[in-house]
């Protein structure tokens, strides 16, 4: 794998995370528990899709084959998508969405803080914009985890279930392979090993305040680094790519 190929792959991974999570969050539109929260979830979705656009645009540039960010988003099949499996998990109830947000935005908080120092100027610039958004997402997720955890009995049960249900998808966030390792040497990628401990500590802290239990270490699902997904992604893409696939000659 050349450095160029590694960088392309790295950008796809980050871009796909943002795109698929943004897609999931957008599904909340007109479905939130009250209208203010509808606006909040949409705002986060917009942050994510904007970030996906920047990252996929850069991926296309790195690849150098004249593609656009839309070509990458709308013309790749599932096995060529590299988003973490957790991002494609269904929204579930509000607690599941909040748990997903908590896991991901805690990860992204440490990740993008570090990527801001990347030797790759474009990634560093994207990261310094992203970190501002992520701080907000994290606060939102942590606040709601605490409210729901320490709210009613029903909300506590739902929040605990969501935290436990999504746990097995969290291990993948810290997987590193030759893509990360080769870029890490050049000071481009983020080292995920130290982030894992930071992540666990923060999650534990939030869950404690929320009077919830931290799930036990257990088997973690894996696959997305190699393009192997859950059944969810196929449905997401068949919706997302519908117009582009049905009318391949059309410009929109």
């Amino acid at each position, binding site marked *: 794998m050349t450095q160029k190929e590694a960088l392309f792959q790295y950008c796809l991974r980050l871009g796909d995370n943002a795109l698929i999570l943004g897609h999931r969050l957008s599904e909340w539109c007109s479905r939130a528990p*009250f209208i*203010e*929260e509808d606006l909040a979830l949409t*705002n986060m979705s917009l942050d994510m899709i904007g970030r996906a656009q920047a990252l996929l645009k850069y991926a296309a540039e790195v690849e150098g084959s004249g593609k656009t960010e839309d070509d990458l988003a709308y013309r790749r099949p599932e096995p060529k998508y590299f988003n973490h499996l957790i991002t494609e998990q269904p929204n579930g109830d509000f607690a599941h969405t909040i748990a997903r947000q908590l896991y991901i935005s805690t990860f992204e908080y440490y990740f993008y803080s570090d990527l801001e120092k990347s030797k790759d100027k474009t990634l560093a610039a994207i990261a310094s914009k992203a970190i501002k958004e992520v701080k907000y997402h994290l606060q939102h997720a942590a606040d709601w985890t605490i409210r729901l955890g320490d709210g009613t009995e029903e909300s506590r049960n739902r929040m605990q279930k969501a935290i436990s249900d999504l746990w097995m998808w969290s291990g993948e966030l810290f997987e590193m392979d030759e893509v990360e390792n080769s870029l890490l040497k050049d000071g481009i990628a983020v080292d995920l090993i130290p982030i894992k401990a930071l992540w666990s500590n923060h999650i534990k802290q939030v869950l404690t305040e929320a009077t919830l239990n931290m799930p036990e270490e257990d088997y973690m699902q894996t696959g997305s680094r190699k393009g192997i997904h859950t059944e969810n992604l196929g449905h997401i893409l068949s919706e997302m790519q519908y117009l582009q696939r049905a009318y391949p000659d059309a410009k929109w």
Partner: protein
Amino acid sequence: MAKDTQLDLWEVFIQSKSGLPYVHAGSVHASDAKMAMQNARDTYTRRGEGTSIWLLPSKNIVASNPDDNEMLFDPSNDKVYRHPTFYVMPEGAKNI
């Protein structure tokens, strides 16, 4: 199940640029101050309208009673000497 609620009402004041006064933008619903802040931000500053936000629970607002308007506001209408234009300056005097 408890009676349904749409959470408490908060009034939102936005400062659009540093140095300018805080102007009432509208209200939001939220159950606590942190949520109110996030909701105010998402509702009233989606287009970069703000540099700062003030919030207060709507129930804490004290408003004047319109029936008192004459008593409260009319007496100040005839205090013309409070306005600089009331005074006659000698012709030719500058910077005053």
